[in-house]
């Protein structure tokens, strides 16, 4: 699972959860796979990214990437920053680990890079 997916995922399909974002992330195994850099895509997607959640995830995973504390309009044009964002969003893969709902503490296991969001009937909102 890439961090761009983590940034979009919520647990609000659970009963009683209103926001369910950001999910806490724990990784037992990670991989780094290089992906072709596409400046347009990154520039297009950045306004949609919850930047604080992304920084928290990078911190949780202990990645050695320096993301500036706050995002600004000028940064969104900065090539160096876009490249870092590309690397963080698309190149790091969580292979094994888990996602944790911030409101209920429900755990969603990640195995072979695929988060399991299946629910029991009693948990469905």
């Amino acid at each position, binding site marked *: 699972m890439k961090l*761009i997916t983590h940034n979009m995922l919520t647990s609000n399909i659970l009963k009683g959860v209103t926001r369910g974002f950001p999910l806490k992330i724990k990784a037992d195994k990670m991989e780094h796979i290089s992906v072709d850099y596409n400046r347009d895509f990154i520039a297009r997607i950045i306004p949609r990214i919850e930047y604080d959640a992304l920084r928290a995830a990078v911190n949780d995973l202990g990645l050695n990437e320096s993301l500036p504390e706050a995002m600004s309009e000028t940064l969104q044009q900065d090539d160096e920053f876009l490249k870092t964002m590309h690397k963080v969003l698309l190149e790091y893969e969580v292979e094994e680990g888990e996602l944790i709902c911030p409101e209920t503490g429900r755990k969603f296991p990640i195995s*072979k890079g695929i988060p399991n969001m*299946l629910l029991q009937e009693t948990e469905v909102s």
Partner: protein
Amino acid sequence: MASKRPEHQGPPDIFYNEEEARKYSQNTHIIDVQTKLSERAIELLNLPDEESCLVLDIGCGSGLSGEVLTELGHQWIGLDISQAMLDVAQERESEGDLILGDIGYGMPFRAGSFDGAISISALQWLCQADKSYHNPVKRLYKFFSTLYSCLARGARAVLQFYPETPNQVDMITQQAMKAGFTGGLVVDYPNSTRAKKMFLCLFAGGQVQQLPKGLTGEEGSEEIPSQARFDRERQRYKNLRGKSLKKSRTWIMEKKERWRNKGRDVRPDSKYTARKRPKAF
């Protein structure tokens, strides 16, 4: 025939086991059909030209539709209920990110995440009550309402599906409209049972958009006169009851038209059509 439908054989997470999933990576016919459907769905999605977008693939399965998205330069996230199918997708090294989940429980995404959504042959599964507590109408509504919120304003969702009965089409469209979508059904090749394909083309808010037209197989040909022609010419073959004489030019033209409507490959009409061959000497 009805019993051949995969939905009747078991819930999707059970039906798409390793054996069934393998078909989706080896059977060239399945791959070909799925790829064609995906291409058409993405065409209907009408994403901005030359821009790479983030697309949600609902019921991505082995990632065949995703491969088409990747080829067109888009990023995608896929959701499917079958672990075996997702394993195949990973074997095929699909570029998209995969999530195991049940679309009937809703889309687990933040509001406004995606530029568009496609789904190939998945929606009909929601019409089945595979577990005692499943209620198809509720599951459909949950699916559409959460899908609506995770799309960007003005984004489209194109969902290709195989309805079993006209009632299912009604049920699906009703729940989509109830969830706030506009748009409707686009039917390709409506006159053919084999080539007919249904796409539910939905718009999530934004400006009013024109629903695209379905393919009929006669694009680019001349217009068909909308009015019947009346002439005083005496009907020579009254007993044919409106049918033309076999092997005549009109008969051949009619047959070609019929085949075109079914979406089959038919040679274009010309002045040589139905002309007799010269007698050999």
